[in-house]
């Protein structure tokens, strides 16, 4: 067993998304989530969001099969789709960030 197998994944919830996890819509909140070998980004996110019904509704589409449109998911500071997909395996010590999507300005 390697060191990364024993480390949790950090889930950082930021800006307005914090409202879904008991925050005030600003700043960030960090959570640690255990990960076992073979578990994917999607597995960890689904397990995590189940604890927060509002987040669950906002994060996923109606069928909960895919992510919805409105929350950006970053893995190790890279947007999902760059280095990781939803079905990519995660290792302990990696970080998922949930960022409220914002377009334009």
């Amino acid at each position, binding site marked *: 067993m390697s060191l990364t197998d024993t480390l949790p994944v950090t889930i950082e919830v930021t*800006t307005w998304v914090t409202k879904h996890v008991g925050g005030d819509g*600003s700043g960030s909140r960090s959570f640690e989530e255990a990960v076992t070998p073979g578990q994917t980004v999607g597995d960890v996110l689904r397990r995590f969001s189940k604890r927060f019904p509002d987040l669950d509704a906002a994060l996923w589409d109606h069928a909960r099969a895919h992510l919805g*449109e409105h929350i*950006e998911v970053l893995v190790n*500071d*890279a947007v999902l*789709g760059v280095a990781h997909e939803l079905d990519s395996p995660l290792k302990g010590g990696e970080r998922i960030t949930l960022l409220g999507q914002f377009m334009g*300005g």
Partner: protein
Amino acid sequence: MTPTAAVTLATKTSRQAKPATPAIPGGYTGKLLRVNLSTGKVWTQPWGPDEMREYLGGIGLGAKILYDEAGPRVHWDHPDNRLILATGPLAGLPVWGTGGLTVVTRGAMTDGATSTQAQGFFGAALKYSGYDAIVIQGQARRLSYLYINDGVVEIRDAAHLRGKDTWETQQALEAEHGLSGHRLSVYSIGPAGENLVRFAAIQGDYGHVASKNGCGAVMGKKKLKAVCVVRGTGALRAHDPRGVVQAADDIAHDLKTDPSARTLYQWGTLPAVVVLYKLGVLPIKNYTTNLSTVDMSEWEAPKLRHLFAHRGHQCSSCGMHHCHMQVIGNGPHAGEVVDEPEYEGWSGAGWQIGLTDKEAIAWLNTRIDRACVDINEFGWVCGWVMECLEKGYLTKKQVGFHLAWGDVEGAHRLLQMISQREGFGDILAEGVKRAAEKVGGEAARCAIYTKKGAAPRGHDHRGRWDEMLDTCTSSNGTMESANPTHQTEIGLPGRISPFDGEQVARLTGGILGRRHFEDSLGGCSFTFRTRVENLARALSAATGWPYTLDDAMRFGRRTAAILRAFNLRCGIGPETEYPSERYGSQPVDGPAKDHAVMAQWEKMLDVWYDTVGYDRKTGKPTPETLKALGLDWLAKDLWRK
């Protein structure tokens, strides 16, 4: 004040005595106000239900007028250029954010089509005065302003307004007419517009700016200082008033509860600073880095708002907590009332020029609006000068003084030089593309622009390829597809890989049209960040037309095709659809540093052209596309078929 032309339009009495005739759909007044500044003639032009259904208002109406009336030799500074200030069928109705206007013209930056939107009260005031749009042509002999008070329309002398900034102009006209607040809407140019700064803007109602593609230079060339509309006394009829209110309630509910819109509802565009930074999309020091040296938690929306004494400054019929006025609390400008910067202000008057003093940014942001230039282009110009001075590509002697990153007073001095076309400011007043081409050498390689000449929005598009592609391919002098909003509604994926060029191009091309539909209704792009289905329902209730999502997208695509045809006629073709060297460069650090957009650019163009149904070689919408859009008349123009 002695008017240079005064016309009392006979339609006033009849409009007030009875509702609009049944032939005119609800939401419309049925009249366009036409103004010829060369002759002083003012008249009304009726337009009918068929034209309304075909072109709606805003950019849809403006694009058709521009195409029909401004031929290829009518450049931006030609007296025959049209300056169209258009509302839409929802303007003045109780739908959030329906007080604005869309400005359509042949703009000074690209010398091509322009559409740019601003809010406030103008659109509602104009509709209540009995007009759906103002179409201005000609050029006044001396500086003038247009005064509209129900059926009274006058072209008045504006010598007393010469040199005033936009806020001073509004204050002077308020004092002159004894009206203020919601009772008088004023859109004006500042010194920059008077001096034909190529990126001059048009500002109104303290803080709302139609800023894109040099529309203020067009107004300045026409010697039109301001358009001043007294809130009219006429009523607007809706086909189904209850249906309008129901649709408006659904839109408001969407804005308050939808995950992506509710942040806008609460904070406007303030959250974008932190969010876009995390994505590598906040432009810092002219694209020389994407890493901040300050604590970004201090840049979250609540901190940006509550740093200042502030109060809401909502537009007509708007329930958003978006626009605010605020007071500078500290420093040399303490006590000054300013407009809360939008994200674009924090970026263009701040991060892009290395300035992170929030109160200084808020002050400079309003000074830019008052001198009245596009804040995006000011940022690209000012940041370029700062970088070039730092690296020795420009000298203190050339510029006239030394300007370092973050120097707010120096940036303001540069703004004044540009606005007055003084010294090096005369070169900079042409915009960064032309200034860089004139200076040449290494300096030219640092400038951020599109080959068309249009200013990119205040983002680092090297981390947002969809916006770069949209900016470069657009036909309206700014982003044309704009941001994906509820794109699953039209069968597009909810998310894509942001650095996969093919996916980016499919999405950017796929959403083309939605923004044109929004911009034709007479409302705000922020309050219209709802499902198109809701907007179509509001339009149906207002007019009585059974308007669908498909109708809306088809309408938007038609408008895009007309704008593209106009630009092709102006000589703006596919060869211009590229970013400048710096704009398309690979970031040196930050979240997007491993991604080079130019490696995929040609492929992106191929896919985009295929998606929108335009011919890759000529840039024209294909005959098949035009036929499908019901634009046979345009196909004859473009393809001689």
